[in-house]
């Protein structure tokens, strides 16, 4: 029996071993299978990542002398790209589509020339749709010389609009690529404007030059191209020529029109030569900057404004750049040499909340705008861009830090257009928005919009905006936008009877670390519509009839989290990523066109495009030469509160060589508003003496100058006259009472008025008292008695003292300074002080 037992043990062991081996082989196989699966997943993820990283750009498209298609395609990404196919579709011809095999690999940073890959004859007069496809499936579509898919934003401006007979005027055609399909426009060419002279056939229009440039090689979405022509118009006063511009192969009827009129230019009186004058104003009130003033007295045109180195001297005024396109002039009278360096125009302005097409959209019952342009403590103060928004406790507060949210979440330039934005960690970061009349939804129409960049690390439900009610149930009234667990954007609203309307995108992963724009609309028929990335066709709609019911909210809306009960957000539904430009409209539903306009509106680094020009003019404002000209210069969005306070300044900076403004010349600073559909109007604040620093008054900070610009001068004839001058040497000197005078020549008559000297730097001059020594470079204030036909020292004003007193009017002033110098010679200095207004 012992041997039998041993045998059974052996048999049992054999089976055990066999079973163990089988089990191990199965486990090993399973692990191997899982390993393969993981490898495949990693490989697939890596392939998808590479696809995401693949970036190539069509940088130019041209045709050579033989009309062969050429152009440059550059790999702007960080991984190699293999181009496989080029499709060329001639516009307007359905059956002619060409396919070319490219088979060209491009290393990161390198380019290929199309002419080396494709032999295709291009007709410059026709338009083409082109498409380049890569091996990873990236498709880059663009139009060549064919802006005929949609009407583009065109604007034609004549500058100036009124010219003297046979003078030149410049026509500026601005073209903005506002196509909704995000395509590049290539080889954009304008057609010379069509000219008609409707009111006098004898009017002659002559093109001097243009278009400059002849074409733009490419125009990206949102960019603006500007073409320039110069024309002269010959005719009689009030004759005009009308110009209609369009693009070659443009959309039918997509034109822009403006006119140039012949008229008399209103001229200022000629100034005379002057030297080293500081003007009739105390030096203590001057500044090194050229301040933009609100007055236009003594400016060469009645519509122009003063610009000089006096401090802001008024309560200030606000100029709409769109309607005024203001020109600022210095006074003539002093030659000024400006050193090479930066000319920095610091402009204090406020941007409109919306482009013109949406300007009144929040006027119905108000709304909320949160641009996140200020971090930290400003979040409660500056982010109160509410419209008509009052809470139960007074003025409502918006975007207050909650949970883990703090100033460290603010990224000053992190937004979709380089604007400020906030990041949310998906754990506990969120804002609360005080519930108020302007965000309560109810039975009204409503719109919620904004930009989001959802992190690819996020999962589940990530709420962007949630306005809700606390009734202890999850199906309480609510109005919300979120990214759901399938990476879709979901806009939904629900009433307490469980009637929900839900609009969810599909087919696109929106957790892709990229900025996207959303607009959720509760429309007039109480349906819901979800628009994404400016597309005028909703990504999703829902017309459930229950949408008509009232949505009753009783808790503060949240940004970046979902409300559960008692204003407490849910632990798992925090948003992970970044948000910007959150907007809510009460009782207003954006239309599809408005959605597109809002998407294309730049609330960042190019909210406005302004054509800035510095030029020299003669005293009458006639152009003597352009110093520099920046066409369609982008200017930042400047958020202002609804109460009209100006909060920020932004700079327009030019680096210029040595520049000399002659004594008989003016410096002109010109701001021309370049309009387009999504442009935000700009309101410039000038001459506001309450603005000192941050923001400061609008001004031009010049490099060092060798002299001060002649100020614009005003004198009150009830007071003594103060003139500021600087001694230029080459010798030190004294000033004496005898012969030192101020002379005022009436520009409207032959009369002149003289004034006796009273004191120099506080020293009263008499027959027995000269001034103190005036060294080279010293500035001195000369105080004169009031100018009269028969000059005297009669004081105080009134009665017989006013006999022969200089009357109000415009005068040309000079100062005659008599004295002697430290070389023992008698000296007489005549200083022209320029024009002065006597009141």
């Amino acid at each position, binding site marked *: 029996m012992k041997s039998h037992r041993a045998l059974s043990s052996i048999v049992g062991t054999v*089976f055990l071993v066999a079973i163990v081996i089988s089990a191990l082989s199965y486990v090993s196989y399973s692990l191997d299978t899982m390993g393969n699966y993981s490898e495949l997943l990693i490989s697939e993820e890596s392939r998808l990542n590479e696809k995401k990283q693949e970036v190539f750009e069509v940088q130019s498209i041209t045709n050579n002398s033989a009309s062969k298609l050429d152009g440059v395609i550059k790999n702007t990404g960080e991984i190699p790209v293999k181009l496989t196919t080029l499709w060329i579709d001639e516009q307007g011809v359905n059956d002619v589509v060409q396919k070319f095999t490219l088979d060209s690999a491009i290393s990161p940073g390198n380019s290929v020339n199309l002419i080396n890959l494709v032999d295709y004859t291009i007709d410059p007069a026709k338009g083409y749709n082109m498409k380049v496809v890569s091996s990873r499936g990236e498709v880059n579509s663009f139009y060549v010389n064919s802006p005929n898919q949609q009407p583009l934003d065109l604007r034609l401006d004549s500058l100036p609009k009124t010219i003297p007979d046979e003078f030149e005027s410049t026509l500026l055609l601005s073209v903005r690529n506002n196509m909704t399909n995000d395509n590049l426009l290539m080889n954009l060419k304008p057609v010379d404007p069509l000219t008609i002279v409707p009111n006098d056939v004898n009017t002659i229009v002559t093109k001097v030059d243009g278009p400059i440039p002849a074409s733009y090689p490419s125009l990206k979405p949102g960019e603006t191209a500007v073409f320039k022509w110069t024309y002269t118009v010959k005719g009689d006063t009030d004759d005009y020529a009308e110009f209609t511009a369009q693009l070659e192969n443009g959309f039918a009827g997509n034109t822009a029109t403006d006119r140039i009129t012949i008229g008399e230019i209103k001229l200022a009186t000629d100034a005379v030569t002057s030297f080293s004058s500081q003007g009739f104003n105390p030096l203590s009130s001057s500044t090194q900057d050229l301040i933009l003033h609100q007055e236009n007295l003594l400016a060469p045109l009645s519509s122009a404004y003063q610009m000089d180195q006096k401090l802001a001297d008024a309560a200030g005024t606000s100029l709409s750049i769109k309607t005024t396109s203001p020109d600022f002039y210095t006074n003539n009278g002093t030659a000024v040499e400006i050193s090479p360096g930066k000319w920095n125009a610091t402009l204090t302005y406020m941007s409109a909340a919306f482009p013109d097409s949406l300007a009144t959209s929040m006027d119905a019952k108000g709304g909320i705008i949160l641009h996140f342009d200020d971090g930290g403590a400003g979040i409660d103060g500056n982010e109160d861009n509410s419209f008509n928004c009052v809470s139960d406790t007074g003025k409502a507060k918006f975007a207050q830090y909650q949970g883990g949210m703090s100033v460290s979440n603010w990224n000053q330039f992190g937004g979709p257009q380089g604007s400020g934005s906030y990041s949310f960690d998906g754990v506990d970061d969120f804002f609360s928005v005080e519930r108020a009349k302007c965000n309560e939804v109810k039975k009204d129409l409503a719109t919620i919009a904004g930009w989001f960049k959802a992190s690819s690390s996020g999962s589940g439900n990530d709420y962007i905006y949630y306005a809700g009610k606390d009734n202890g149930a999850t199906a309480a009234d609510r109005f919300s936008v979120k990214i759901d667990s399938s990476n879709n954007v979901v806009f939904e609203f629900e009433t307490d009877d469980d009637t929900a309307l839900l609009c969810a995108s599909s087919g696109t992963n929106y957790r892709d670390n990229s900025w996207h724009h959303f607009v959720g609309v509760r429309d007039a028929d109480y349906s819901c519509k979800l628009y994404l990335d400016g597309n005028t066709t909703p990504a999703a709609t829902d017309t459930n009839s229950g949408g008509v019911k009232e949505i009753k909210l009783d808790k503060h809306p949240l940004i970046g989290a979902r409300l559960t009960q008692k204003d407490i957000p849910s632990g798992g539904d925090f948003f992970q990523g970044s948000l910007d430009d959150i907007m809510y409209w009460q009782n207003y539903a954006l239309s599809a066109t408005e959605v597109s306009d809002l998407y294309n509106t730049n609330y960042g680094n190019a909210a406005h495009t302004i054509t800035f020009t510095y030029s020299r003019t003669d005293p009458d404002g006639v152009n003597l030469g352009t110093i520099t000209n920046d066409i369609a210069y982008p200017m930042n969005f400047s958020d202002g509160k609804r109460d009209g306070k100006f909060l920020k300044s932004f700079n327009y900076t030019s680096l210029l060589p040595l520049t000399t403004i002659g004594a008989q010349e003016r410096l002109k600073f010109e701001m021309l508003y370049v309009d387009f559909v999504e442009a935000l109007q700009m309101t410039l604040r000038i001459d506001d003496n309450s603005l000192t620093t941050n923001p400061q008054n609008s001004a031009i900070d010049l490099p060092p100058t060798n002299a001060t610009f002649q100020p614009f001068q005003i004198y009150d004839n009830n007071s003594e006259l103060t003139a500021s001058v600087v001694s230029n040497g080459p010798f030190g000197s004294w000033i004496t009472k005898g012969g030192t005078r101020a002379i005022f020549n009436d520009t409207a008559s032959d009369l002149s008025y003289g004034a006796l000297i009273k004191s120099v730097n506080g020293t009263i001059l008499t027959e027995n008292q000269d001034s103190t020594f005036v060294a080279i470079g010293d500035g001195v204030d000369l105080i004169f008695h009031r100018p009269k036909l028969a000059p005297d020292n009669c004081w105080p004003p009134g009665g017989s003292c006013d006999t022969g007193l200089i009357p109000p009017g415009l005068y040309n002033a000079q100062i005659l300074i008599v004295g002697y110098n430290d070389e023992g010679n008698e000296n007489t200095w005549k200083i022209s002080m320029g024009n002065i207004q006597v009141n």
Partner: protein
Amino acid sequence: MRNRFSKGLSQTRVKNRRGISNVVTSGILLSAISIIGVMMLGWSNSSILEQKQEIETVFNTNINKINEELIFENVWFATTPSPNHLNVTLANTGVLGLNVTEIHVTNTTGTNNTTFINYLTDGGIQKANSFSVNATYAWQSGDELDILVLTDRGNQFITQVIAP
């Protein structure tokens, strides 16, 4: 003596019989266990093999489905030869060959929701290759069309186009 002898003999016989039955029993038991063991081993092996094959099939099917990737390289509208039709070019950007079986063209303009299905029998596209097909649909200018492509593995790819 005889009785003693007889007794002794019978005792020996009994002992011998007991030994034989033990051997027989053990033999039967061992044989039974061996047979059962071999059967179980065989069953388990075949079962594991089946499971392996099933896992491989499921795994390969799903992975292949996941790896299948197709882009609409170009869609253009043609009028000749009549009737109007669309030329759809598809590119296989995945890592496997695939087979396009159906192309559905649905007009989504306004309330019009007509669908035309094109069945394909030659829609095989090798890796990194493209495939063009004329999809019959009497389009009219301005029509908004959804183009849905179905593959043999059950994937669906969709794009939207507007007729010129």
